[in-house]
């Protein structure tokens, strides 16, 4: 089983289409040519490296190494989320790390243990790609969630403070912003669950079919992974808001002014 291998030469043949793209880009002065070339080059180099260390991880298939690799991915994910949501990495790293690690570990192991019923829980062939898919999707929702929450309160600080004085309860005063940011964070996944199969064939399913799996098996995996992605996103966004509150607000429940990075 497994998809037919591609030769490097046949992969390179795809560059052929880059010629008209670059030509049109130049003719229309899209200003994108440099970005296209850099993007394509980075993709090849980065994925080349991924190929190398995945080979390495799969060959050794050591539980300890696999877990260390997943932890490293979580650390990078947290860093990326905070950088992209314009929040200070040093301030929010710990709460975000916990908010991501707890649901991520729980859902990932549940997926492996209960759903796929793997005999060896730490098998790299399942743990690494599924872990990667969960993290990759959480990245986007955590960025949206944290950014909307903190920048939203910053922008509407007067409304927040007024309702804080009116209600006397931080929890109640924060609700409108928490509601809005959780909804924006998970809506894209809900929308993609609702349209999956109609508009697009998901990547994981396509990959499995190419790899020789029966469509029905690929579909079962796809349903399971979508559910896992949604749960991990949902819980990590909710926890990231809850856990970050003591770092984001002072003892008087007022937003700290120095939590935003840059500017």
């Amino acid at each position: 089983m497994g998809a037919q291998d591609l030769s490097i030469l046949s992969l390179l043949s795809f560059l052929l289409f880059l010629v008209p793209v670059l030509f049109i880009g130049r003719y229309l002065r899209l200003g994108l040519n440099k970005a296209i070339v850099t993007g394509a080059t980075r993709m090849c180099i980065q994925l080349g490296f991924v190929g190398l260390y995945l080979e390495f991880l799969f060959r050794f298939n050591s539980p300890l190494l696999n877990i260390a690799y997943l932890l490293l991915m979580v650390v990078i994910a947290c860093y990326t989320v905070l950088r992209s949501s314009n929040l200070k990495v040093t301030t929010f790293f710990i709460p975000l790390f916990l908010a991501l690690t707890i649901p991520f570990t729980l859902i990932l192991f549940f997926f492996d243990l209960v759903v796929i019923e793997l005999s060896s829980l730490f098998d790299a062939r399942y743990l690494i790609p599924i872990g990667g898919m969960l993290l990759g999707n959480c990245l986007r929702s955590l960025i949206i969630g944290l950014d909307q929450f903190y920048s939203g309160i910053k922008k509407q600080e007067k409304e927040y403070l007024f309702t804080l004085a009116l209600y006397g309860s931080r929890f109640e005063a924060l609700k409108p912003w928490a509601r809005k940011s959780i909804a924006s964070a998970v809506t894209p996944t809900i929308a993609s669950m609702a349209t999956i199969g109609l508009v697009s064939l998901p990547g994981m399913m396509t990959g499995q079919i190419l790899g020789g799996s029966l469509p029905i098996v690929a579909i079962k995996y796809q349903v399971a992974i979508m559910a896992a992605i949604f749960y991990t996103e949902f819980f990590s966004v909710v926890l990231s808001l809850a856990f970050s509150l003591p770092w984001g607000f002072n003892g008087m429940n007022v937003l700290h002014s120095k939590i935003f990075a840059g500017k």
Partner: protein
Amino acid sequence: MDGNPVFSDFSMEINSGTKMLIKGRSGSGKTSLFKLLLGFAQPDTGNIRINGLALDKTHIREIRNSFFYLSQDVDLPHETGRTLIARLERLNREHPLVIDSLGHFLTLLDLPPSLLEKKIPVLSGGERQRLGLLMGFLLDRPIWLLDEPTSALDDAMKEIVVDYITAMDKTILVVSHDRVWEAHPDITKFNWR
């Protein structure tokens, strides 16, 4: 507070039941005084006590619950007045709202009951200001901090509101440029710088 000092060497004691108009130029830090009292900003040095309680994180909830604060822009949440009242009822079980007098306050403020069914952002400035005051009457908290509470009201309504508020058995601090506050005999004036 952050940046330039808004005020320094400031000391003031306000007795319970005082009705005080704080006068001063725009931008001279009058609103900052309210922010300090509400714990929205912290003084660099010095301390604030309210009803004998130090204004700190241990007492902040209790202190905030003794204030009714009406901000200049009446930043009420984006929902209907009715929903807001229901929420305030739920959050204030220990000091229940004087909901029995809702009809009385609506008449006093010349607000039709149907206005409570409208989303607050669609209301006019004057309606929002009166709705804000309505929340104050319903909450019935002992200390009122009012930041330009009558700016969007017509003259007749200004008189009604000022007369009613100054007659209440509460501590009232008002920042306002409306003459009607200054002209009222029961109001103490405090010149802010």
